[in-house]
């Protein structure tokens, strides 16, 4: 039997205001556990304003960033933003943080020698500032001298880490309130185990670390054409590191051909080589029944929450309603 789990909605800063507003206004009624906001760096809506508005337009749902790269913001700004969003959401805000994608950072001229150390320092510094401490500290990325938030009351903002590699997974298990994971099923299984082991090593209960799984979900039963799903998967494959691909039982030749085609031509061309097996490995797509079956598979390996979307295309509003209804109806049956 599948234990109770959260189904949430994922949005990104590159989506239209009308779409993100609809999700914020309807998340409670849908029964969503959280709304996670992904930052497409420097594209579309500004993350923190979008997060504030999502909190303002909803009432019960948890709202989290998923994720904000600590490397592109001043640490004092992150601390101040945590306070602000925590107050706006009256405790519903969760700060999803990460170091940032290496390619994105390089485009911005940011090189980090020790990313795990930097992320650990960032999390510790934020927690100390929110606890009301005055800080003197420095790192590769930041420096604070006699800085405090000058707040009378300490606050606690949950921190989730968006991580991938083994050292980062360990860090999340050691110190985060939750982890946001993305990747194929076999990788997720490995990652959840790694986080749980790290939590245990740190003297924590594995239940202390929530595991949020956010993979592309493509409800092809409501107007999203399968070719869109294949295009999304081609892009995901192109972006998946070799270390992760090596863990999978997949047709590697086909995968390499997709990566080469996406790189030399386009995701649309690469999509032509995405077969049903790869579609299933790299995304959760298909009918609502099949998608919820897959959610249950993911929960079965230890995840506590699955995130729906993006891409949002076709009649996505109705698709969300029907998927949430399917999840709810199975809960009632069990």
């Amino acid at each position: 039997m599948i234990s109770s789990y959260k189904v949430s909605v994922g949005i990104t800063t590159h989506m239209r205001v009308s779409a993100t507003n609809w999700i914020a206004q309807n998340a409670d009624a849908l029964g969503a556990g959280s709304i996670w906001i992904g930052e497409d760096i420097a594209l579309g809506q500004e993350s923190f304003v979008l997060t504030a508005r999502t909190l303002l337009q909803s009432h019960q749902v948890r709202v989290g960033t998923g994720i904000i790269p600590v490397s592109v913001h001043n640490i004092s700004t992150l601390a101040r933003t945590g306070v602000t969003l925590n107050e706006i959401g009256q405790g519903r805000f969760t700060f999803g943080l990460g170091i940032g994608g290496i390619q994105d950072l390089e485009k911005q001229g940011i090189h980090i020698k020790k990313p795990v150390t930097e992320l650990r320092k960032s999390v510790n510094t934020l927690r100390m500032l929110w606890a009301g401490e005055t800080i003197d500290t420095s790192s590769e990325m930041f420096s604070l001298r006699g800085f405090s938030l000058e707040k009378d009351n300490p606050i606690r903002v949950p921190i989730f880490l968006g991580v991938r590699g083994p050292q980062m997974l360990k860090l999340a298990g050691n110190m985060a309130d939750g982890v946001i994971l993305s990747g194929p099923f076999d990788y997720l299984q490995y990652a959840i185990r790694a986080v749980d082991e790290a939590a245990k090593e740190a003297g924590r209960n594995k239940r202390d670390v929530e595991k949020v799984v956010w993979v592309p979900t493509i409800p092809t039963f409501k107007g999203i054409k399968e070719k869109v799903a294949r295009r999304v998967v081609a892009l995901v494959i192109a972006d998946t590191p070799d270390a992760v691909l090596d863990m999978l039982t997949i047709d590697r030749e086909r995968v390499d051909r997709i990566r080469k085609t996406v790189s030399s031509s386009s995701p649309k061309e690469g999509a032509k080589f995405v077969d049903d097996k790869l579609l299933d490995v790299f995304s959760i797509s298909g009918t609502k029944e099949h998608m919820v079956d897959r959610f249950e598979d993911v929960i079965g390996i230890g995840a506590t929450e699955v995130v729906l979307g993006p891409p949002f295309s076709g009649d996505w509003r109705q698709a969300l309603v029907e998927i949430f209804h399917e999840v709810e109806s199975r809960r009632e049956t069990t």
Partner: protein
Amino acid sequence: MKWGVALNVRDEVSETLRKAEVADRGAIDQIWVTDFPTVRYAPAIAAAIAERTQKCRIGVGLISPLLYSSTQISQFMSTLIDTYGDRFDLLIGPGDRSALARVGVSHSIKQMVEYTTSALDTIKSDLSKAGYECSVLLGAQGPVMIKKSLKADGVLLNFSDIEMLHWALNQMGKIPTDFGLGVFPPTYIGNCQDIMDNQSIALSAAMVALGLNSKVSETFGFRDKIDTARSLLKGKKRIDVDIANSIGRDVLKRFALCMANDQLQEYLKVIEGMGISSIVFGPPQGIREKGVELLVKAKQQT
């Protein structure tokens, strides 16, 4: 004359929103949401204020381009406008140098000016190319920034004294007709008679005075006093009453408005005659809800 009030100084979000509603109902034209070194992140507060108010314009700033990238600044302004309509203006400026140094942002004054003016060009261009109706103003106090402000849609001068305002306008030379001239001094209007009797406004005025360019303080004959106060500040790290006292009443008065309603009406007439079309009542006016109520009352008497 357009009236604005600065909020988000030290309050929790709920208090800022309550004050914003008082200001909006009381026909204050614009609420300015201050940013660093105050604790809360101004663009998110601006969104919350937009949700809770109907008529007022909302200003975001002062925002320092040394703390945020030009892209992020353009992005949060465009997000606010896309969501809540053409209600927003932006005020940028280098920001408090010592506060920035505490968070690892250390530059020479020259670099701060260059960085800010370059960001001004980028942000204005980004927003206008995308078709946003949003004034981008520059906060200025020294001669270089005052002159550079002509590249913006307007300027908010960080002092109140009539002689200093005349000097600032002279620095600018020929001012385009559609350029927005405004002042943004520390204020306490309503029951404030003597700046030295009201610690909050004395400290706010001292903070502005201490940030003044040496050449300007020389021009107006109070460089010695400000230099003495700066030496004191090095030891104490934070502005206190001793530092305010060392600057003295006569100098502090030039940076702040501490007066009763009828005196304010006179003052506004004078600056309006100089071409100044907006005033932002800076802290401590908006620190307490009572201060916002007093401001609303003063506006109703105009």
